[in-house]
């Protein structure tokens, strides 16, 4: 009998308090009935052997307890899509904030290298994301407790408002939007930081190239606006594709103009003493031309996608 009492105690431990007494009382009665039946079927077995056999059939205490009181998920299944979306949005915003904070720190601190800046950014993001995850999960747990998994929007949805997604590439990944946003914000900070802060990285830029960079910054603002549009409407339409194509074409033009806006630097930066002025200018030109290939590729891609729409 000791084995039976141990089993019941183990099951009881896994049950919610309000069910513990009732369930174990009933379970004990059922097991005793089974033991009686087994005694008739297999009289040669000892009591211990019978109990062992019946408990083995019933399964582990935890499994048995979960059958009586199935564990409720932290977040109801109906709220999971909203939970995942909220997490993705918040993580994206936290990533942007970290990019801004770390860029400002990097631009204002001579001793902070690029790797240290990236480490600072990753560390800050992990810290903030962990906190946000805990808060959001707790919030959804509370909502789930209060309203269950009722989906209020189910009754009000209109099939006519379904997006026209004929091509698989029309869906826009949230991560792509946030990466674009982070890039635009970082470049804006890089260009405008010398105006309101003491930037060491751009101290040797020529007046000519600095003017050009600042003149091109409306393109970056346009890029941010386009990202906001993409966040609102998470799929490519003809209008969005055309805007993206124009933006990327303008970016290619701006980068190419910048590549030939010699001299880019008024003098060779102190951090690069082994370079001559000509070598530096040529390196910048080549680098900028390589960078221009990225929006250039997007121009071609969007052009081909627009043609697919026409067909």
């Amino acid at each position: 009998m000791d084995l039976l009492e141990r089993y019941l105690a183990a099951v009881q431990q896994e049950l919610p308090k309000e069910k513990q007494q009732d369930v174990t009382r009933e379970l004990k009665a059922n097991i005793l009935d089974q033991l009686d039946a087994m005694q008739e079927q297999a009289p040669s077995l000892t009591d211990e052997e019978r109990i062992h056999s019946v408990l083995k059939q019933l399964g582990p205490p935890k499994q048995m307890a979960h059958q009586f009181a199935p564990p409720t998920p932290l977040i109801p299944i109906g709220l999971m899509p909203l939970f995942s979306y909220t997490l993705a949005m918040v993580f994206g915003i936290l990533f942007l904030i970290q990019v801004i904070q770390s860029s400002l720190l990097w631009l204002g601190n001579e001793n902070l290298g690029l790797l240290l800046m990236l480490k600072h950014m990753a560390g800050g993001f992990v810290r903030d994301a962990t906190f946000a995850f805990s808060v959001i999960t707790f919030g959804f747990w509370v909502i789930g407790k209060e309203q269950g998994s009722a989906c209020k929007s189910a009754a009000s949805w209109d099939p006519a408002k379904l997006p026209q997604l004929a091509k698989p590439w029309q869906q826009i990944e949230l991560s792509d939007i946030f990466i674009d946003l982070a890039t635009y914000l970082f470049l804006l900070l890089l260009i405008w930081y010398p105006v309101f802060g003491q930037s060491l990285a751009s101290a040797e830029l020529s007046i000519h190239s600095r003017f050009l960079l600042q003149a091109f910054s409306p393109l970056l603002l346009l890029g941010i606006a386009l990202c906001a549009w993409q966040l609102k409407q998470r799929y490519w339409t003809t209008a969005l594709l055309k805007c993206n194509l124009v933006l990327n074409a303008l970016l290619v033009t701006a980068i190419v103009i910048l590549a030939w806006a010699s001299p880019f630097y008024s003098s060779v930066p102190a951090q690069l003493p082994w370079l001559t002025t000509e070598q530096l200018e040529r390196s910048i030109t080549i680098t900028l031309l390589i960078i221009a290939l990225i929006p250039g590729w997007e121009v071609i891609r969007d052009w081909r996608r627009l043609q697919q729409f026409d067909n």
Partner: protein
Amino acid sequence: MTSAQLDKMRLELRRGVLVLAVLSSLKAPHYGYSLRKQLQDAGIDIDEGTLYPLVRRLADQGLLDSEWRQGEGRERRYYQLSDVGADLLVQLTQEWQQLNTALGPLLEH
């Protein structure tokens, strides 16, 4: 098809049918073991670890009434179909019969 897949599908197929079988068996009062015996005698084998919690869940939903009784020197919890459970059983039986009628010709092909 692997044996694990077959087991999973059998489990899914049996889940709803077991509710119907249990509700139907509880037109007369039964305690856990006697219910299992009745089902077994009718050709429906169900292990205790599934049956006892299932009966409790149906009782929690108000489909079964229950009471503790003393018998053969031991207390037992007896379950019987409640009024709500009886109404539901009628509807489920109709549903089952419709399904069965529709499935029959399909399975013969």
